[in-house]
């Protein structure tokens, strides 16, 4: 697991102090973005990976699992296949591009599933408190006691390895992080005067939760999401490495597994997808870190 844990934004904790917030207020947010070098680096890498993933079908129209050349040709030796080939003569460049597609897709959809469950559980528990909260906290803890990777393996083993199942399983295994964060935010925010004011104006509970409180809790959630996506990509790579990934797709994890036995001789077969994973996960973490600074008005005043 990766060790990055986002600092929850402190804006909600200080009543009376006007929390100067971002949210589309053009110039201020942009200034913060432009001065945040790690964020810019992370965002550029992520954008590049996303671009490659989107264009994979155009750049490498064939199936990346097809045998197209001699096996294990070194990178930069063959002009047609500049990144070399795998043990079965597959084009590594094509594999990397299609793998980016699979990895990002898993990252985004697993994070979405995790967010959806986590926000729902956290918001309901944090807002209502009482028995509902007690029950939801117990369920959250139940999920947290099971190691994430183990839970994903069990879920995938039961339902069969396909991309949606894997993404869903990772989401189901990781939502407690979001739920705990959202719950903590809601517990501080719900006692705010503006919530009482919203109730006094006749808004429904659903509206207050999603229309009034959730926007205030967004900054730390956004930051966590990037970390969640990074972890999902790692988990998917781990699954594929173990041979539990979607067999119809090439993913970075399965490419690493392919190169495992050749590590001492043709190490590039492992190193290339490994580097891709590292770069992508690093970029997501940089983006998350950067967002934390950008969305947190306190850190801006420190600058």
């Amino acid at each position, binding site marked *: 697991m990766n060790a990055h844990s986002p600092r929850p934004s402190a804006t909600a904790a200080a009543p009376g102090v*006007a929390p100067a917030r971002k*949210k589309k207020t053009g110039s201020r947010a942009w200034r913060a973005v432009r001065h945040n070098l790690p964020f810019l680096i992370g965002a550029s890498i992520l954008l590049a990976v996303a671009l490659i993933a989107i264009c994979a079908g155009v750049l490498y129209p064939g199936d990346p699992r097809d045998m197209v050349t001699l096996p294990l040709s070194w990178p930069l030796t063959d002009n047609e296949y500049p990144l070399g080939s795998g043990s079965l003569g597959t084009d590594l460049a094509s594999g990397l591009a299609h793998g980016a597609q699979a990895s990002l897709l898993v990252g985004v959809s697993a994070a979405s599933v995790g967010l959806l469950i986590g926000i729902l559980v956290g918001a309901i528990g944090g807002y209502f408190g009482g028995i509902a909260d007690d029950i939801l906290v117990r369920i959250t803890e139940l999920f947290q006691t099971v190691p994430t990777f183990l839970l994903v393996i069990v879920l995938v083993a039961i339902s069969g390895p396909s991309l949606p199942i894997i993404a869903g399983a990772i989401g189901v295994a990781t939502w407690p992080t979001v739920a705990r964060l959202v719950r903590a935010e809601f517990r501080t925010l719900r006692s705010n005067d*503006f919530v009482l004011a919203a109730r*006094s*104006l*006749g*808004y429904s509970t659903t509206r207050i939760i999603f229309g009034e409180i959730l*926007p*205030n809790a967004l900054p730390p959630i956004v930051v966590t999401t990037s970390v969640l996506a990074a972890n999902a990509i790692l988990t998917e790579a781990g699954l594929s490495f173990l041979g539990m990934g979607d067999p119809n797709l090439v993913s970075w994890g399965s490419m690493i597994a392919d190169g495992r036995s050749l590590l001492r001789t043709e190490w590039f077969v492992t190193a290339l997808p490994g580097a891709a994973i590292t770069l992508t996960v690093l970029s997501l973490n940089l983006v998350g870190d950067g967002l934390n600074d950008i969305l947190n008005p306190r850190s801006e005043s420190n600058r």
Partner: protein
Amino acid sequence: MKTVPVLEVLDLAIGFPAARAVHGVSFEIHKGEMMALVGESGCGKSLTAFAIMRLLPPGARIQNGQVIFDGTDLATISPRELRRIRGNGISLILQEPMTSLNPVLTVGVQVAEIIRQHQNLSRAAAKARVLELFDLVGITEPHKRYDQYPHNFSGGMRQRVMIAMAVACNPALLIADEPTTALDVTIQAQVMDLLDKLRRELSMAVLLITHDLGVVAQWADRVAVMYAGRIVETAPVQKFFSAPQHPYSMGLLNSSVSNGEGAWHYTNHRLSEIKGSVASAAQATGCSFAPRCRHVIAPCHGGQPKLEAVEKGWLATCCRAQNQEERIHEFA
């Protein structure tokens, strides 16, 4: 003025699991009237006000009584019906304008949402109405202000936004819970003037919760004094300030600083206080003010006195009220 009151509170009792906080409060507010509910901290005035809209803090519960608004009892109607009344028939202004607005939404959107919540208006029509409201409550450059966030506003301006939100749907009753406590005096006067103007223009009733007798004297029509969860005196403002009947009312007036004619200025005399604290009232068997009262007589310990008419529209719960010769200045 003998019409149907806008709001009628009958024998309202509010309790926490451990103790009862408000014991059988009754009062009524008429159209266009500004009624002040005064009392020291912890006497139950805010609790009473929140109970009217069923916005009690967790644990507190309406244990008895009725809140009649527009022919229905708000204490028993369904949450759905209640939501239709909140912000529409009755609205609330909170004490702290700095935290009562949602920090991540523009003020224009926040006000427009209330209008759209209760009235079937298009986005554009709601916006036009918001701009009109901003103008009404004295927010300059409404077009520019519409798209700003609460942190762009000063305290007084935020309270104006809150007032705009509160009057957006032309409520029949506006509850203002210490609306000026968090503001400085000049802004306080502006905000009170605004509330006064709005209640005349929109002919709303206003229930003003405050502990500032200066505000009461200047703006309210009628005053109800609460002590230890009971209304101890209710009177028209002029009568209250000239001849308070309940010893607690006298104590409140005596302990407030003013420099008007006949008042005891604190530079010349020691400012008098009400002895003891409100906490002692919880277990008293007789009149709840008896442990602190300077004029205790034997019947005071007999039982809680009822609200009795001193004259029409003027009630007090003191067994000495009517035969009291000495008035406010006797303590000199």
